[in-house]
């Protein structure tokens, strides 16, 4: 079948402890059930939310695990950065692991700017309150006269815990609380911390991209995101956010020369990234400052899109009404890209 297989039924310990219902869905199916994901209705692929629910709708339900979302930055990197932060914030709320790589800003700074999630009030059982209500009949304001059968139920509708919902809402005017953020495991790659090593005589990629790819592969192996990894521990998703690839800070002269020397470094990196993603439970969002790419031959970023190196791409046209168009390269494909089973 289309979805990744070979997983035993998940133990009920993974179910949220907040759920007030004792109903446990029997998972006889072989789909991996990871919090924060759901299978696509079209082809059964595992989807994660990008954090922006309307974007999820445009992408056909969510971002498929094992794919790359390529975002062309707008001129001041405002909206593209916002989408990246939403993506990472969604990962924190769903308890996925994060991997953030940047050359310009410290990944810690990016992580500190994540928007605050709007969570439903979770029913905090106040055991002190309930006996008070029942044994003090003169608390007439709270006592229900008509619907007295509902007296002892918790006052606030206990929402399912945030991790079992798909797609959350965020308050951009506030940043995420440090406690919530630190609950999620984050891996960082800050380029200035990785000194340039002497590369072999002919390497197809820049050292920065090679180092990033190597670091990604290490994290995937170490934390067990390989699809082939043992099934004994519970599975999770790795959300990879790569900021401003192709800019000069990565050592790439794609954005500053008419005839760059490393014309194919970024494309080769994306090819390697696709190889890593296809064999692991991870999903990547990459922002590229395509408005800086002068190379006539590359036509902006269309070279990458034309050969389908990214499954989804959000392009920005700086016209009078600056707009984003989402090109879904998977539309009408007989089978979407799938990770290895």
């Amino acid at each position, binding site marked *: *079948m*289309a979805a990744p297989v070979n997983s035993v039924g998940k133990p009920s310990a993974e179910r949220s402890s907040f759920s007030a219902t004792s109903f446990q869905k029997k998972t006889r199916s072989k789909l991996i059930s990871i919090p924060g994901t759901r299978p696509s209705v079209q*082809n059964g692929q595992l989807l994660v939310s990008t954090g922006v629910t309307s974007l999820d709708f445009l992408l056909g339900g969510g971002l498929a695990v094992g794919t790359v979302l390529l975002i062309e930055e707008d001129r001041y990197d405002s909206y593209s950065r916002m989408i990246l932060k939403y993506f990472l914030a969604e990962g924190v709320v769903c308890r996925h692991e994060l991997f953030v790589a940047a050359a310009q800003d410290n990944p810690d700074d990016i992580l500190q700017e994540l928007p605050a999630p709007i969570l439903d009030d979770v029913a905090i059982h106040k055991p002190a309150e309930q006996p008070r209500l029942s044994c003090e009949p003169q608390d007439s304001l709270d006592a229900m006269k008509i619907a007295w059968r509902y007296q002892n139920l918790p006052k606030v509708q206990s929402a399912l815990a945030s991790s079992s919902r798909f797609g959350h809402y965020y308050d951009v005017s506030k940043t995420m609380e440090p406690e919530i953020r630190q609950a999620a495991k984050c891996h960082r790659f800050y380029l200035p911390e990785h000194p340039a090593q002497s590369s*072999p005589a*002919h*390497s*197809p*990629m820049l050292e920065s991209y*090679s180092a990033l*790819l*190597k670091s990604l*592969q290490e994290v995937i192996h170490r934390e067990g995101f390989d699809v082939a990894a043992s099934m004994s521990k519970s599975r999770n998703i790795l959300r990879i956010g790569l900021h401003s690839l192709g800019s000069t800070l990565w050592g790439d002269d794609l954005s500053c020369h008419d005839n760059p020397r490393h*014309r*194919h470094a970024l*494309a*080769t990196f994306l*090819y*390697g990234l*696709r*190889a*890593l993603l*296809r*064999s692991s439970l991870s999903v990547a969002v990459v922002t590229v400052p395509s408005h800086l790419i002068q190379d*006539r*031959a*590359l*036509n902006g970023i*269309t*070279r*990458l*899109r*034309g*050969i*389908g*190196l990214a499954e989804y791409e959000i392009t920005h046209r700086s016209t009078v009404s600056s707009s984003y168009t989402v090109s879904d*390269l998977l539309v*009408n*494909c*007989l*089978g979407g*890209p*799938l*990770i*290895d*089973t």
Partner: protein
Amino acid sequence: MYTELNSILSTTPDSFTQGEFILLSDRKSDASFLIHHFLSFYLRARCKVCFLGLVQSFSHYNAVSQRLGISLIQAKEKGQLIFLEGLTESLSVLIPQVTSTGNEAMDFLRDPSVGLRSLYDFVRSSVTSSGGGEEGAEEWGPPVLLVDDLSALLSLGVSAGAVLDFSHYCQATVCSQLQGNMVMLVRCDGEEEEDDWDDGGSELLLKGLTHQCSLTLHVQGLPTGYCRDIHGQVEVCWRRRQGDGQNTQKKLFQYKVHDKGASFFARGTSSAVL
């Protein structure tokens, strides 16, 4: 295998022309559904297939082929299918490991200016290994080479000239020498007349390959834009005159891809319209 496409091309798994070079191309669209068709077609025809899957993982092709009724895993075990999984092989080149694996087919990633010699050697050794020395080896039909896709090579730094050389060498070996077939996919992005020769080579590559091939299927979106029921149009063009002197050389169809296949129909006869 899409039955309507078989009748358009007048082929069946039991009888098809040998020595053909079929070029699949698309412009701002996705012709990979045709690759799945030809893969299942030639596997059903009991040919020995060498598949260079450069852009997707093996499980992707396997999942789609299962919907079309063919199991790639079984074909690989029986020795009918030789699959080069470009993505996984490339990782060992791009991230230098201490111990390097043996397959050198993706070595062009190390230095794209060298060309595709190692890839061609891989193809040649796959299609000519007859397996006659093994006992119980099944006899397969003529060899078939499928490549998905050539534009990925362009983006990874290989020059258009090198790719054309590669396809020419493969055609000489597979089609002329061994009387097998070859199917290659090429993808273009821009408008046809916009690019000049320096665009990185995709137009040059497409024109060069169209000149070399014997049958081309060109997939495009509808000129009027996105439509839910008609996903695009396919232009089929026979470059060599058919043996029985068919007059029609070009045909245009519209298609729709659905869960278990694709349907082709003449323009304006979509089931949503009629």
